């Protein structure tokens, strides 16, 4: 791993506390984490470990209760809703387990959507969305609606949508969870390629063999980082 790459994400002592009824639930209890450009990280942990909460905070869908979160050097912790929406739009590409495509829109329109919210002019938007779909191998499926596509194809549309705005990181939450193992492997190959092209990827999974694709594995338990290791070296860092 090249330590000279610029830092994209820097988290210091992040906590997240929910109030459920009268009880306080500590989902995250002090997470510190640095992610550099072109890293490929898998976040692992049992359910209830807080990995989803961490992903939501990294993805700017949620804000931490305490702690500092710098995204490209900018403090995200105290941004308002509009600023967060802007970060999500420009800097983060989401890939979900359930694909989360807009059902009534065709593939092309689904991929165009982040560009619409980014106010990209129509002609450029079309071109970029088409190219993004071609890049994931769906050049011939642009006008199909999600229900006319297979699971793997849907996930490819979602990946094209995540990439179309050239985000700083791609955040994939169990991207193969709803796919058979062969298709899942194809999607993982796609992530491999994206990583080689210079993209930064954070992947949430609970499958060890999926996590093996990543270069660095972060294990979460009880709201804290249990282990942070490089896959090749098998060496515990923290």
């Amino acid at each position, binding site marked *: 791993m090249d330590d000279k790459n610029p830092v994209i994400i820097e988290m210091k002592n992040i906590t997240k506390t929910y109030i459920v009824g009268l009880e306080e639930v500590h989902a995250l209890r002090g997470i510190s984490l640095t992610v550099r450009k072109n890293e490929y990280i898998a976040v692992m942990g049992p359910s209830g470990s807080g990995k989803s909460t961490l992903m939501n905070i990294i993805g700017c*869908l949620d804000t931490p209760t305490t702690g500092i979160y710098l995204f490209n050097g900018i403090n995200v912790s105290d941004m308002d809703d*509009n600023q967060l929406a*802007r970060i999500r739009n420009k800097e983060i590409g989401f890939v979900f387990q359930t694909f*989360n495509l807009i*059902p009534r829109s065709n593939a092309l329109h689904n991929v165009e*959507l982040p560009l619409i919210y980014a106010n990209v002019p129509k002609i450029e938007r079309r071109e970029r969305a088409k190219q993004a779909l071609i890049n994931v191998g769906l050049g011939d499926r642009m006008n199909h609606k999600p229900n006319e596509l297979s699971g793997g194809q849907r996930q490819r549309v979602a990946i094209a949508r995540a990439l179309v*705005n050239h985000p700083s990181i791609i955040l994939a939450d169990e991207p193969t969870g709803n796919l058979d193992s062969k298709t899942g492997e194809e999607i993982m190959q796609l992530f491999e390629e994206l990583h080689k092209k210079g993209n930064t990827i954070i992947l949430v999974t609970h499958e060890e063999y999926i996590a093996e694709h990543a270069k660095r594995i972060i294990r979460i338990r009880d709201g804290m980082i249990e282990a942070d290791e490089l896959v090749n070296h098998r060496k515990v860092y923290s």
Partner: protein
Amino acid sequence: MLNQLKEGLFISFNAILANKMRSFLTTLGIVIGVCSVVLMSTAIKGVDNSFQQGISSLGSDVLYIDKFAWFGNEEFWKMRNRPNITYEDYLKFKSLAKLPIAIAPQAISVRNVKFRERTAESIFITGSTDEYLATTNFTFKSGRFFNEIESEGGRDVAVLGYDVAENLFPNLEPVGMTVKIGGYSYQVIGVLNKQGSTLLGSFNPDKQVYVPIKSLFRHFGLNWRTITIVVRAPNSQLLEETKLEAEQIMRQVRRLKAYEEANFSINQQEGLTQIYKNTVGVIQIGGLLITGLSLFVGAIGIMNIMFVSVKERTREIGIRKAIGATKKIIMTQFLLESSIISLIGGLIGLFFAIILSYVINQFIPTSVQISAVVLAIFISFLTGIVSGIAPAWAAAKLDPVESLRYE
């Protein structure tokens, strides 16, 4: 921003088309509301036109000296005890009055009018003098009004209103023919052009027959009944002055002392206009209430369906937020959707209103006003916006994490 508006429109049409029946039922309240507001304004416009036309045939500078007041608070039994206005009153009044340009008596009898086997039933037969013509704005389709000689001599000649002539002489020139009025033969000497409005009922000149008053008295013996003295002022500006003079002269004719109440009434068309305005006002308020109510129900319907729509699309909203839609964008999207639903309702309502206005046109000549169309579109759009605010806000403030988890 334009991009996002287009996207909003696209989403809205998609959503509406995906739920055609639901959208249509939702918009029904708006359809009815807009339809009724357009129809009402159209109908009132028609009634207005008709009334103005009718009222102008009466003349705005004409006074009617009567035993009874047309309108007002005077008690009927008091007025009933007044002496009748007689032909002699008319003669005395005429000899004293200086301002009016025309003074004529008017007596009315209701009779059947026959020509061969055709009968016009219960026609108002107005008896007057040749001067009556000058108190009206009548124009003639054919022939003429009776002259002084015919009037003074009480000749049996008749002038037919337009409708009466149409009725009795479908394909014949009436002038020169002889009709039977209440059994007596009258020679038709003139036919009026269409004058009045259906609003005036039997008082509409189109439905009347005019004969010399002396002929009317001779055949139908109406001397004992009260008559009306019709007085025309030189112009509308001198109407008040003419009215004051008429009052003075009538008091003189009736030999009333200064402290005595007048035992006659001087009526004018203005009273009619007032009554008309009041009536139309009430109809308008009623219509407005009905319209408002149906628009309100429509708005509630749209609000309801929009809440359902927001609930159904919680996950979609979560997705949109995750990929960068701001609160404003989500809000705009749902406001657009509700206003488009409402606008479609408005256009459907307008469509029905235009069709129905052709039906109304058969009874009262009228047409849909451009202002009503603009108003209808504006109202339906506004209703859509207003009813969409709460659901759109509910959608905008959804938490992205929660809504992405929503099944």
